[in-house]
């Protein structure tokens, strides 16, 4: 008996229509845990080397983790992995909501899609009954409308994931949406789903999850809940969610403003968590088993829509980076991104890049079909989101992401294409935050804060210093935070409520029957991190150190305004940071894991494939 797991891997070949299940391998479960670990394991072992990200050989791997759907607080996270059409390397996106529990209750630890359906379809999963159903009538519809139609058709018990027009049309940063506003956002997982002609996935499950020691698990889970409810951070996070960070982020000069040229937006007070709460929020909205619901459901009267959010990240990129200062405009842009099926982080970053190009004369009115693409123009943001989703005019170039767009547009725009590995930066301006910049540079999907969020470490230890402890801190966080993605649970109870990580240890042991210390679990996370790094080397020709470098803006152009005005890192310091990081990871000067490190992590057999 494999305790803590659904017990099966579900494989769906969309080309042939073949559907098969196999038991989850206990050895793989022990070595890679689940969720993100399963995603990279199957991707590495089953994706044909050099596969076209948008071709039928790519895999879309949807994996809950062992904690998903259990009594542990925040057990509602789902990992979705594939080869990224945005970066050409690894994509691993994480989504909350209720879907992960439903997949687990249906008995699955991974759902692996491959091939390409001849016509638009959706995947229907009702426990053991799995069908590929026609979705011709859904193709072309928005993400949110599609979810509503399928809920009406199948019943509220079904949990649905959908793509929007962005995913259908091959926008390289299309997302997968679930629960009317939760996204597996980054790296183009929705693009890959669209390339397979899959419009949606609908799942219902009502099996139970085997638990090794039920009483001990209940005790451990209750201890975690008790700690959540007693946390003094609960009052902030429940009232504001991530939007509570906006004011502080501006105070410290970390709010991306005008395409990361500044870290403080004039007028940011109008985007604060309190303004959002008072002006548009209707109610709180949590994921499965959440004691601290950070989701906010909002009514945007000015534009006549309802939307989940905006989260801090959407406010940072669609708001600050594009210089919008009305929370209702930001919320409406968020709604459009959600319904069109675009990652709001990449989309906001891309539009801010285009605005800078316009203001510098690299793009003209002729290029934009007359849209005045100036910073602060909300109507231009709305229009560009639609142009990108449908690849109209300049939208077709911007749909490729800032890296490719800057290569097309040229004229020095590469220097302010704010990306690493081809993925757009998320919501922290990092000119004066070495640990945070290193977090973006070395993140395993491209420039994303999810794996390491280290800006408070910079504040504690000095924002102008480049020291080895910063690299060590980033590595530590890159093991802790993704571990939650492998376990299939939310890390925000730790991040926001300050839970003691050791409280998770007895819960995981009682659930799975395997006694593992937190350090043992971190070792699994390090294994996952290094296997992901090998994947990049295997799939991306010429991959190495250059891919971990930030755009020149961070080491050549000082911040133009705000509390960090004039700050910029020296290129030599950026290089030193990377050296320190590689050395402490046991990687060579090009960022390749050493044979010793791979042996230590039990990855030698995988290295042979690189």
């Amino acid at each position, binding site marked *: 008996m494999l305790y803590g797991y659904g017990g099966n891997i579900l494989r769906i070949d969309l080309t042939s229509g073949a559907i098969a299940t196999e038991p989850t391998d206990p050895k793989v479960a022990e070595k890679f845990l689940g969720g993100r670990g399963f995603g990279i394991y199957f991707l590495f072992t089953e994706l044909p080397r050099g596969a076209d990200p948008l071709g039928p050989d790519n895999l879309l791997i949807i994996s809950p983790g062992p904690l998903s759907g259990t009594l542990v607080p925040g057990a509602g996270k789902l990992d979705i992995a594939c080869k990224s059409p945005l970066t050409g390397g690894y994509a691993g996106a994480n989504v909350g909501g209720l879907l992960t529990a439903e997949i687990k209750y249906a008995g699955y630890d991974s759902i692996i899609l491959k091939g390409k359906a001849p016509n638009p379809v959706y995947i229907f999963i009702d426990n053991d009954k799995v069908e590929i159903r026609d979705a011709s009538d859904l193709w072309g519809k928005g993400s949110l409308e599609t979810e509503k139609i399928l809920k009406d058709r199948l019943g509220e018990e079904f949990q649905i994931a959908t793509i929007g027009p962005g995913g259908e049309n091959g926008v390289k940063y299309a997302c997968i949406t679930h629960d009317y506003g939760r996204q597996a956002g980054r790296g183009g997982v929705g693009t890959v789903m669209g390339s397979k002609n899959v419009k949606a996935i609908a799942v219902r499950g009502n099996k139970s999850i085997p638990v090794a020691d039920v009483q001990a698990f209940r005790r451990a889970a209750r201890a975690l809940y008790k700690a959540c409810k007693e946390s*003094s*951070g609960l*009052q*902030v996070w429940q*009232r*504001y969610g991530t939007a*509570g*960070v906006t*004011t*502080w982020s501006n*105070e*410290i000069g970390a709010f991306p403003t005008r395409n990361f040229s500044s870290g403080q937006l004039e007028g940011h*007070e109008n985007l*604060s*968590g*309190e303004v959002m709460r008072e002006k548009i929020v209707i109610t709180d909205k949590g994921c499965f088993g959440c004691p601290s619901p950070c989701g906010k459901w909002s009514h945007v009267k000015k534009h006549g829509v309802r939307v989940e959010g905006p989260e801090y990240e959407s406010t940072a990129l669609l708001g600050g980076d594009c210089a919008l200062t009305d929370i209702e405009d930001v919320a409406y842009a968020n709604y459009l991104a959600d319904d069109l099926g675009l990652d709001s982080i990449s989309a906001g970053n891309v539009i801010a890049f285009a605005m800078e190009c316009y203001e510098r004369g690299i793009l003209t009115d002729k290029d934009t079909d007359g849209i005045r693409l100036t910073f602060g123009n909300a109507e231009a943001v709305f229009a560009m989101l639609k142009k990108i989703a449908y690849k109209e005019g300049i939208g077709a170039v911007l749909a490729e992401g800032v890296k490719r767009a800057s290569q097309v547009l040229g004229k020095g725009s590469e220097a302010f294409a704010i990306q690493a590995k081809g993925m757009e930066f998320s919501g922290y301006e990092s000119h004066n935050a070495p640990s945070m910049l290193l977090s973006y540079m070395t993140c395993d999907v491209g420039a994303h804060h999810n794996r390491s*969020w*280290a*800006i*408070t*470490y910079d*504040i*504690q230890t000095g924002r102008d210093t480049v020291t080895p402890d910063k690299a060590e801190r980033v590595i530590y*966080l890159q093991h802790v*935070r993704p571990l939650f993605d492998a376990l299939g649970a939310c*890390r*925000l109870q*730790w*991040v*926001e*409520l*300050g*839970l003691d990580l050791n409280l998770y240890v007895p819960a995981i042991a009682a659930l799975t029957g395997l006694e593992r210390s937190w350090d043992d679990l971190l070792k699994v996370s390090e294994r996952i991190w290094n296997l992901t790094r090998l994947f990049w080397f295997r799939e991306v020709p010429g991959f190495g150190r250059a891919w971990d470098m930030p755009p020149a803006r961070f080491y050549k152009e000082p911040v133009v305004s705000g509390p960090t005005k004039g700050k910029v890192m020296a290129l030599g310091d950026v290089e030193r940071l990377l050296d320190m990081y590689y050395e402490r990871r046991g990687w060579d000067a090009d960022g390749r894991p050493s044979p010793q490190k791979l042996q230590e992590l039990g990855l030698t057999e995988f290295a042979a494939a690189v």
Partner: protein
Amino acid sequence: MATVELLGILREQAKAAPEDIGPAEGKRVAEIIQALGVPTDLVAFVMVNGRQQPKTYVIQSDDHVILIPLIGGG
């Protein structure tokens, strides 16, 4: 009387206790943070009577001010 409370790492880093810095009424939150000897950038949230306020907020009598850091994930 207004009261001031520190949470988490701010409690450890403070060089003075709230009861030792005199009345808080009429002062800006930023002044209180400075009097406590807490690095201001580490104060991520200022909650006054259950509502988030900026550090420029002037403390009123009977306010309950809680200073909250953002450290757990970083």
